[in-house]
């Protein structure tokens, strides 16, 4: 199993519904966020290009955060989802420093917190909250090893990219371009 997510940058309107859904679903403390929306504007008028990306933890296959965690609190769970075991986390900040996407933060309770791909919803057969709530249905989620899954189907059909693959992390958050 290899869970992955694809975000259609041509369909995303940047409404930030996914951000709010995530905060509500996961009880993210006020003032923090596990996901965010980036707007890229490129070119000179009138040749302008815009790309909107809904970003979160990339659940990398070669995660620097899992590698550098001194206690094993950061670990790979089902389908390669990167999770933090808060009972093992000492809050040293090594994983936060090691993440090129700055996807982690220290929870006010001391341990490190991040996107979980809503693993509790996946276990119930549901999509992650961000994908479920998206009004333009631009977030695709599923198992890459299952050729019939939503995410495998869309990645077969469309051109896509990942963010800073040159950092060697093998990110699993794809952007359809």
């Amino acid at each position, binding site marked *: 199993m290899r869970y992955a997510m694809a975000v259609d940058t041509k369909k995303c309107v940047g409404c930030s519904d996914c951000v709010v859904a995530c905060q509500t679903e996961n009880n993210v403390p006020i003032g923090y966020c596990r996901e965010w929306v*980036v707007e890229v504007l490129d070119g000179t008028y009138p040749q302008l290009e815009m790309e909107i990306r809904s970003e979160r933890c990339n659940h990398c296959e070669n995660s620097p955060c899992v590698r*550098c965690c001194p206690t094993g609190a950061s670990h790979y769970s089902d389908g390669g989802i990167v999770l933090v075991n808060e009972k093992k*986390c*000492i809050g040293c*900040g*090594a994983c936060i420093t090691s993440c090129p996407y700055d996807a982690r*933060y220290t929870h006010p309770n001391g341990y*490190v917190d991040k996107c979980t791909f809503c693993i509790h919803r996946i276990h119930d057969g549901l999509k992650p909250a961000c994908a479920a709530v998206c009004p333009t249905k631009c977030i695709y989620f599923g198992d890459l090893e299952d050729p019939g899954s939503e995410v495998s189907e869309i990645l077969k059909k469309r051109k896509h990219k990942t963010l800073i693959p040159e950092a060697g992390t093998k990110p699993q958050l794809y952007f359809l371009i």
Partner: protein
Amino acid sequence: MNEEIIVSGRNNPFIDPVLQIWHWQIPLYLFLGGLAAGILFFAALYRIMGKEEQYPTAVKKAPLIVPILLVFGLIALFLDLKHKPFFWQLYTTIKLQSPMSWGAWVLMAITPLSFIYAALNIKEVFPLWDWKFQWLKNFEKFSGKYIVQLSWAIMILSLILGVYTGILFSAFNARPLWNTSILGPLFLASGLSTGAVTIMLMSKNARERKLFARIDLLMIAIELFLIVHMFMGFLASTQVQIDAANLFLGGPYTAPFWIFVVSLGLVIPALLEILEIRKYHIPAIVPAVLVLFGGIMLRFIFAFAGQTSRWLY
């Protein structure tokens, strides 16, 4: 025009707008750890070579301050943790890929050894020292028999401790400024240099002071060589590493780095030590304090500048 902005608003404390997760605790610990490693290395080295009579400060006196340095370093490390009640989880795991894990284990090994080494030499400074309990006297006698083996263990562990202070940073490829293998040897050389000047400062023996001034000169030369190589490597590398080098070559850290670390911390003490060797009278405290100051600044500047270097946004 190329503009990349987070439109949903992201303001995670200590992450945005630039990473600032590590404050004064980590660089202070790196300095204390490097200094402790430097003092222990020279103490163990000259003990193994059987030169405790020629260089009594290096072998016997200076190691007495090492346990204090390491304890303050450990306190700083503990203060850095955000989930403090769980700190013991560090010692339930050995993870070789994580420098912080094996660094914690090295500290766990070298701290008690430094206490034993200091205890064996405490009568040199306090001749009337009394252990009070018979079992402590027996333990002193017992470990005294193995002082050479103890010195070997301390020498090897001190090198690992010294190099680890740099590898801790260089293992993070997410921070391009830190992601250079030169940081390991650079921080080790800086640790040995601060250790050498501390011995020089404490010594009352002219021959010993001269020796450690020369050792310090050699270490400063190595540091300058490594710094030049570091910039050559950065400037010949990818864009993110060129940007990282530019933090020191015109960017916001240019003045503190070249004034505090390179000029005051390396070049001026080196010149003063050369004058001293050429028979001019220079009070040892001047180059020593400058080198210690430069060592602190090197770690602080690298810790803070490194956190601002990044790949995205």
